[in-house]
C-alpha cells in the first residue's frame, strides 16, 4: 500500500468553529479547577443517593461507547477481513482515541481520591471480583493500545517509516487486543449494574446486561463511523463514502433487529414486560429507546433507506441517541436510590460535559488537519482556499 494512503486535510486550523469550541473548553476548565479546589459538591449536584452523575454516565459510559468506532471497525476489517472498509479505519480509530482518552480524563476529574489512582495497579490492593477493577484496567490498557494502533499516523507525519514498518509486524497483536479489551470492558459496563439489583428497574435489570451493553456498544461504534464519515465528507467537501456505508448499514440493521427481538423476548419470558405499560417515566423512556432503536432498523434494512445519504445519516444519529439513552436510563433514570433522592445535573456539571465534548471535536478537527488520518482523495491534494 502506498505511503500516501492517508494524508492530512490541508485546511485552515483557526476557524470560528474552533474558537467557539475552545471557549467552551475554557469554561469547562474553570469549573474543573473549582472542583479540584472545593470538592465535587461545589460544582455538581451529586448527592447521597446519586454518587454518580453526568460525568460518569455521559463522559465515561456513553463517551467510551462513542469511542467504539475503532473497536467495531477493527472487528470488521481485521478479524472478519472486510478490507473494503479499511479506508474508514483510521478516522474511526481517531474517534476512539479521543472518546477513550477523554473518558480517562473525565475519570480523573470525577474520582474522589484521584491522587491514589495508581492503587488500581498495585497487586496487593487488587480485587479481581470487582467489575470496576476489570473495567478500570481494561480501559487503561485499551487507551494505550489505541495510541499504539493510531501511532502510524504520527510516524508517517514525522517520516519515521522504518519504525512504522517495524511496528506493523506486531500490529496484529495490538489489533487483537484492540478488539478483546473493548469486548471485555464494554460488556462490563453493563456488568457494573448487576450489583444494583432492585435499585434498577426490571426493564433494564437483567442478567444479560453485559451482552446488551456489548451489542449496543458495537452498534454505536458502527453508527459513529457512519456519522463521522458522512459529516466529514460533507463538511470538507470530500467524496461520499455512501456505497461502503450502505453495505455496513445492512449488517448493523440486522444486529439491532436481533437486539430488539432479544430484549423483548427476554423481558416477556421474565414476566417483566408489564412494567413497559406501567405508564411511568421508566416505561416512557423504554418506549422512546425502542422507537429510536427501531428507526435505524427500518432505515438500514430497506434499500431506499440505506441508499439515501440523508436517511442513513438520520438512522446513524438515531442509533447513537438510542444507545446513549439506553446507557443514561440504565445508570440514572431507571435507578432508584434507597432513600428518596432526586438528581439533575447542575449548570457547571453540564458545562464540563459540554467542554469535554467540545474538546473531543476540537482535537478531532486538529488531528485530521495536521495528521494523515483521512483516506487520500483526489480533491484533497489541491486544497481550496476556505
Amino acid at each position, binding site marked *: *500500500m502506498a505511503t500516501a494512503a492517508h494524508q492530512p486535510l490541508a485546511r485552515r486550523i483557526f476557524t470560528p468553529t474552533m474558537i467557539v469550541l475552545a471557549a467552551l473548553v475554557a469554561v469547562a476548565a474553570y469549573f474543573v479547577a473549582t*472542583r479540584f479546589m472545593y*470538592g*465535587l*459538591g*461545589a460544582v455538581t449536584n*451529586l448527592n*447521597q443517593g446519586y*454518587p*454518580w452523575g453526568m460525568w460518569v454516565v455521559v463522559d465515561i459510559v456513553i463517551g467510551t461507547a462513542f469511542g467504539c468506532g475503532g473497536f467495531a471497525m477493527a472487528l470488521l476489517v*481485521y478479524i*472478519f*477481513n472486510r*478490507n473494503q472498509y479499511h479506508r474508514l479505519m483510521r478516522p474511526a480509530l481517531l474517534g476512539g482515541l479521543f472518546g477513550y482518552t477523554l473518558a480517562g480524563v473525565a475519570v480523573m476529574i470525577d*474520582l*474522589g*481520591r484521584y491522587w*491514589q489512582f495508581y*492503587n*488500581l495497579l*498495585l497487586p496487593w*490492593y*487488587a*480485587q*479481581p*471480583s*470487582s*467489575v*470496576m477493577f*476489570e473495567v478500570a484496567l481494561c480501559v487503561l490498557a485499551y487507551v494505550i493500545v489505541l495510541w499504539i494502533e493510531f501511532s502510524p499516523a504520527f510516524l508517517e507525519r514525522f517520516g519515521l517509516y522504518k519504525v512504522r514498518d517495524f511496528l506493523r509486524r506486531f500490529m*496484529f*497483536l495490538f*489489533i*487483537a487486543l484492540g*478488539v*478483546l479489551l473493548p469486548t*471485555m470492558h464494554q460488556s462490563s459496563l453493563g*456488568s457494573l449494574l*448487576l*450489583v*444494583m439489583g*432492585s*435499585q434498577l428497574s426490571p426493564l433494564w435489570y437483567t*442478567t*444479560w446486561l*453485559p*451482552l446488551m451493553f456489548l451489542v449496543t456498544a458495537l452498534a454505536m461504534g458502527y453508527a459513529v463511523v457512519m456519522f463521522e464519515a458522512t459529516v466529514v465528507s460533507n463538511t470538507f467537501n470530500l467524496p461520499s463514502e455512501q456505497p461502503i456505508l450502505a453495505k455496513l448499514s445492512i*449488517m448493523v440493521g*440486522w*444486529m439491532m433487529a*436481533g*437486539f430488539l*427481538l*432479544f430484549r423483548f*423476548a*427476554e423481558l416477556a*419470558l421474565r414476566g417483566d414486560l408489564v412494567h413497559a405499560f406501567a405508564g411511568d417515566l421508566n416505561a416512557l423512556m423504554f418506549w422512546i429507546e425502542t422507537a429510536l432503536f427501531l428507526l435505524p432498523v427500518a432505515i438500514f434494512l430497506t434499500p431506499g433507506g440505506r441508499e439515501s445519504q440523508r436517511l442513513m445519516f438520520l438512522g446513524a444519529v438515531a442509533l447513537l441517541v438510542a444507545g446513549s439513552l439506553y446507557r443514561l436510563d440504565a445508570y440514572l433514570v431507571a435507578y432508584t*436510590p*434507597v*432513600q428518596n433522592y432526586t438528581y439533575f445535573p447542575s449548570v457547571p456539571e453540564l458545562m464540563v460535559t459540554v467542554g469535554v465534548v467540545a474538546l473531543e471535536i476540537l482535537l478531532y478537527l486538529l488531528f485530521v488537519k495536521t495528521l494523515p488520518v483521512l483516506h487520500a482523495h483526489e480533491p484533497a491534494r489541491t486544497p481550496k482556499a476556505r
Partner: protein
Amino acid sequence: MALNRRDFLKCAALGGAAAGTAASTEAAAAFIRPPKEMPPKAVGMLYDSTLCIGCRACVDACKEANDMPVEMPVHLSDWNEGTWDSPEDLSGRTLNVIKAYRHGTMEAKDRETDGYAFVKRHCLHCVDPSCVSVCPVSAMRKDPETGIVTHDPDACIGCRYCVYGCPFGVPQYDLDNPFGKIAKCQFCTHLQEKGQTPACCDVCPTGASLFGLVDDLKEETERRFAMQPGTLYQFPRGNLSEDRPRHEAPVPKYIPAVYGPNEAGGTQVHYLSAVAFEKLGLPKLPKRSFAQVSEGIQHTLYKNLIAPALLLAGLAFFAWRNARKRDQDEA
C-alpha cells in the same frame, strides 16, 4: 474467511433469540455464586425501634467516637451556623442518623396510622456485602472473624461504586471536601479492640441499640418474641453482659419479623419494629445478595482468564492471517 456475513448475521440473530428463550431467571441462576456464611464470631447489633426514644444520643456519641465533623444541611444554614449538629441522612460526615416515620396526627408512638416511629440508619454489616464485592482496590474489607465491614481510605480511589451499589445506601462520600473520603460505620472497631462497646450502643439509654454476638442477639430476639406483649421484661442496655443495669418495661407488640437475617444475603445488624419495615425506610430486598449475581456472572466470564485468553488467541490468529493475506495482496 469463509464465514459468509449473511450466515453470520443469521446465526447471530437466531442465537440471540435462542438465548432469549432460555433466559428465564432459572437459567440465569446457573451463574449465581453460592451464598457466603456468617463468620464464626460475627458481632452485630439489635436495633429495637420500639425502645428508641429518639434522643439522638447515639448520633452524638458516634460523632465524638469517630471524630466526625458537625453537619449542617444547607436549607437550615440560615439559623444554624454549625453549632448544632443536625444531619438529615447518612453522608460523608455522618455515620448514623435517627429518622422519624410520621403519619397523620402522630398521636402514638409505634403506630402506623396517626402515629410515629423512630429508625436508626447505619451500616448493617452484610454477610455478603456489595461494597466489598464492588470495590476495585480492596478498600472495603470484611473481617473474616468478626464480620465487620471496614474501609481503608489509604486504598480508596474515590470511585463511589460502593455508594452506588450498596442496597441500603450506606457508604457515603464527602462531596464537599476537595480531599473527601468515604464514610461508613465501622462498628467502632477502634473501641472494640480495647474491649469496649460501640459508642452508639454504649450510650443508648433504653437499649434500643444493643451490641453483641449475632448468635446471642438472635436468642435475645427470640426471648422478646416469645413473651406476651405487655408482660414486663428486663431489657438489657449497651450489651448483653450482666454488669450493666437493665431496665424494666412491658414487651411491645412487635410485627412478627426481624429485618436483616433474610435481606440481601443476611446482615449482622438486625431490626425489630412495631410498624412495617418499609415505613421505616428499610428497603424490601430479596433473600439473595446482589453480589452473588454480579460476581457469579463475572467469575463465569473471567474464570482464570481462560475465556479472554482463548478469545485473544483467536483474534490474534485472524488478525495475523488477514494482515498477511493483505500484505500478500498488496505485494
